[in-house]
């Protein structure tokens, strides 16, 4: 099985990553027109989760962008963030946005916010999301997010909507998700035999 790990995201202490030399700042395209496609105001523009190997695990876009643009942004950002050394600050300027990122075990959580937005509270948005995942999955690890990506999306939607924080109470968010699971489990009872379910 590839290197994506079963390390508990919350417990693992971030280890130093690769020795990739620190290259140019992502901001080489400062002032480029491309960024104008972002919406004029709003807290979060998008959130990306990717592994140390650069594999995208979750993407959530709060601004309308074409698939091509999304791929380009993802590629650029993953590269930029992976090239940063530990102990560097968690914020960087990129195009005309600010990137706030944090590494949990094997996963990077990376949010794009606007210039005037609050970096520290965004960092804690990331942490609260990790806590929510952790509570739901019970010591969440990267594999949980790979195999249950839809759950990761549902939890995110309860926590953030349209790029804004909707509900900060852990209890309330998980209540909403667990209610849904109850509904699902009761429905699954109708589906006794899952033998055909392999393909």
């Amino acid at each position, binding site marked *: 099985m590839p290197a994506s790990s*079963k390390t508990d995201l919350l417990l693992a202490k971030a280890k130093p990553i690769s020795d990739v030399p620190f290259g*140019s*700042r992502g*901001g080489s395209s*400062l*002032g480029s027109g491309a960024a104008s496609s972002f919406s004029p*105001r*709003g807290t979060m523009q998008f959130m990306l989760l990717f592994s140390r190997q650069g594999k*995208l695990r*979750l*993407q959530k876009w*709060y601004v309308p962008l074409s698939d091509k643009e999304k*791929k380009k942004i993802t590629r650029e950002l993953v590269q930029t963030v992976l090239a940063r*050394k530990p*102990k*560097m*600050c*968690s*914020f*960087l*300027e990129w195009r005309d946005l600010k990137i706030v990122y944090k590494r949990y075990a094997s996963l990077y959580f990376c949010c794009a916010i606007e210039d*005037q937005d*609050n*970096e*520290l*509270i965004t*960092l804690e948005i990331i942490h*609260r999301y990790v806590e929510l995942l952790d509570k*739901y*999955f*019970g010591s969440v690890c990267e594999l*949980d997010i*790979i*195999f*249950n*990506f*839809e*759950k990761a*999306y549902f939890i995110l939607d309860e926590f953030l*909507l*349209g*790029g804004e*924080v*909707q*509900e*900060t*109470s*852990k209890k*309330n968010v998980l209540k909403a998700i667990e*209610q*849904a*699971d109850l*509904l*699902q489990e009761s*429905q699954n009872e109708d*589906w006794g035999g*899952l033998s055909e*379910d*392999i*393909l």
Partner: protein
Amino acid sequence: MPAVSKGDGMRGLAVFISDIRNCKSKEAEIKRINKELANIRSKFKGDKALDGYSKKKYVCKLLFIFLLGHDIDFGHMEAVNLLSSNKYTEKQIGYLFISVLVNSNSELIRLINNGIKNDLASRNPTFMCLALHCIANVGSREMAEAFAAEVPRVLVAGDTMDSVKQSAALCLLRLHKACPDLVPVGEWTARVVHLLNDQHMGVVTAAVSLITCLCKKNPDDFKTCVSLAVSRLSRIVSSASTDLQDYTYYFVPAPWLSVKLLRLLQCYPPPEEAAVKGRLVECLETVLNKAQEPPKSKKVQHSNAKNAILFEAIALIIHYDSEPNLLVRACNQLGQFLQHRETNLRYLALESMCALASSEFSHEAVKTHIDTVIGALKTERDVSVRQRAADLLYAMCDRSTAQQIVAEMLSYLETADYAIREEIVLKVAILAEKYAVDYSWYVDTILNLIRIAGDYVSEEVWYRVIQIVINRDDVQGYAAKTVFEALQAPACHENMVKVGGYILGEFGNLIAGDPRSSPLVQFGLLHSKFHLCSVATRALLLSTYIKFINLFPETKGTIQEVLRAGSQLRNADVELQQRAVEYLKLSSIASTDVLATVLEEMPPFPERESSILAKLKKKRGPGPGPEGDEGRRDGGAELNGGGEPPPSTASTPSPSADLLGFRGGAPAPPPAGSSLLVDVETPPNPPPPGGAPPDDAFLGAGPPPPDAPPLPEADELLNKFVCKNNGVLFENQLLQIGVKSEFRQNLGRMYLFYGNKTSVPFQSFVPTLAVQTRAVEPGVEGGAQVQQVLNIECLGEFRGAPLLGLRFRYGGAPQSLTLKLPVTLNKFFQASEMGAQDFFQRWKQLSMPQQEAQKIFKAAHPMDPEVTKAKLLGFGSALLEKVDPNPDNFVGAGIIQTKTLQVGCLLRLEPNAQAQMYRLTLRTSKESVSKHLCDLLAMQF
């Protein structure tokens, strides 16, 4: 297989994901995916109707494949079908697929909207939330059209569950951002404000975001939110760390909500009501106090949440910019963070201090940290942090610190990251020029820039040093000596050769007395670099050589030989060849007198300051720093002159050589009607009426553009043009200057006509604007007239009119005069018609004392209503009939159009014929605009 804790409903999906993860190569993965796609396609197309569960599973697989980065072109219909399932998880997957993979297939959108509509109407809160999430995630115009009316109803309905309210608020926010025109303003808006009082913290958290967005568009409709936000904030800030239960985050009560409330308050000026203001100041003080308390937890989450609130509170303090005490406290707090062990805090402190540096109350307090900031520039390991330090140094720079800061930035440049070198170069160049007291320091600094980071020194920077040296004769000798020394370095940057070549060509004579820098030594030094240089530089050096022949006849032989060499005369580059041929001929045919005339010293450059600044702005976008707040300090009417470089020899075709080409004896091309718009900007900053020269503004740095203060009558002349666009601007016994102008929105075009009233030609006729303008023909024949066209763009609010300087020779006697160009803020005034009801509604909205300016004055002219009307129309305002109940009064309205902002203006003029007095009232959303327009207009009656 991993242990999946919950909801492991889809084993097939898990198997598929495992398979993909076990693929050893990209090819294997693609193969597996194609196999799966074929399987799903056949299932979807098959005869057997799929049950909901299978549909859900396959749709989920498609979603997974899409998220891996592959294209998906089918399955949308099946996903839409899932929406109408009454099983929650099927519905949920259907919505997820649509949220991630919408396309604007109109047929599908109709079906999707139908599904959403049903769920919204279902009164089942979980279904309603799913539907609202989907609208918020997609946020397309089609969805806005379908639901912009429904969502507000859901939001304010009395029986809506809290969780639905939260989703509805943020859903509406997303729709408002996507299509503000579609979200109706209605009676629900008033009720939304009251959600700030809601019992449920989650509802408040969601609602604040919505209100913050809505109030930006209609601040007056939401004004009441200020006091509500303050009291909510005050309750949170003063609550004990456990009061808010699950809304307390690592011992910090409701950090997200606090930050959002502080942001909301930044949409408004400080509260007027004393009680509210007092309570808010108390809150801000509490936040600052808490920063000093020992932490309640060692966890970084605790300090992050606490400091997130602190930074937002500081942002609000900076936004208000009116509480010196709080500003200084904020600065001290940030000062502590500058040395914090957390890199994040150091970064944020540097960033936040940048804004404090431009407040007059805290500028000095920021300066006390200069050594720490310099230390950060030198020792921070993270380039993003060093960048912030460089920004802050730039922002805190003033006359007293300039030398130190520039020196530090220069030494930083030696090791700076490549990505930010150009920006540092620009900043150093700007600071050096802005704060140069001693121009030899300025020259040293720029030459150091070239030495250290020559590759990053753009044309704007080295053009600028040449312009300044040419315009200041006290520094020319020093410049010549310094470049001569710099050129002696074995490897010097090509930009140094350019500057050196140009300066020695103009001022080499000033150091030629020293045998160590005799003319031939200078020539030898320059020519030793010649072969290593690019064509453009070589062309420049050839011009230097011909100037040498004029300056130092003893070099003529040597230089002619160089020009005559085959490598020049038959150079493959046509520009070099032409120069060599022409210069050789010129030097052999022309008499010394002719040569001396042709190659006379360059005339001073017209002032065109901020081309470097413009470049920095282009690179960085407007930001804090010396130039960042010009809109606040003193806006500039920036004129985009039709720029043509100084006349160059007509026979030299290369545009690249124009700027530095020598002044030609050949006639310049006559000014044509069309003018090129060139990105040259100079917000002229003329002396205030009191006559004191502007001392601070960067924009006014260097010698004031035209050489003389404006004529005493310039203001009076200017006033004549406030209400009209055409006429005679100035006339004396020699000269008449006529003006014709037209303005539309924030743009204008002005024709200036210079008429010679005498029978003797004017020579060396140079009108200089504080902007770069198209050159006019340097002579004006007796009785003749020349024309100059200016294109004008108003970038921001401004007060002073641009200056027009004029120099010419009349019968050998130099003449000069300086006038104010008739460009006043009201030229960019666009009339708006409106009815009485509209007018009074707006009038009431602008009821804050600082928004109004009023003057009562004696009539200077006969009080004729028709003349008054004409003047008001000429001023740019619309005349509104039947608004004022008193028919003698005049009421007007319009919008000041600038590139950066628009200011709506309302005015009322009440004549009192008996007393021969007027009362004029102006209301606009900007204090300075109200006052300025009032001043301008009051002088017209």
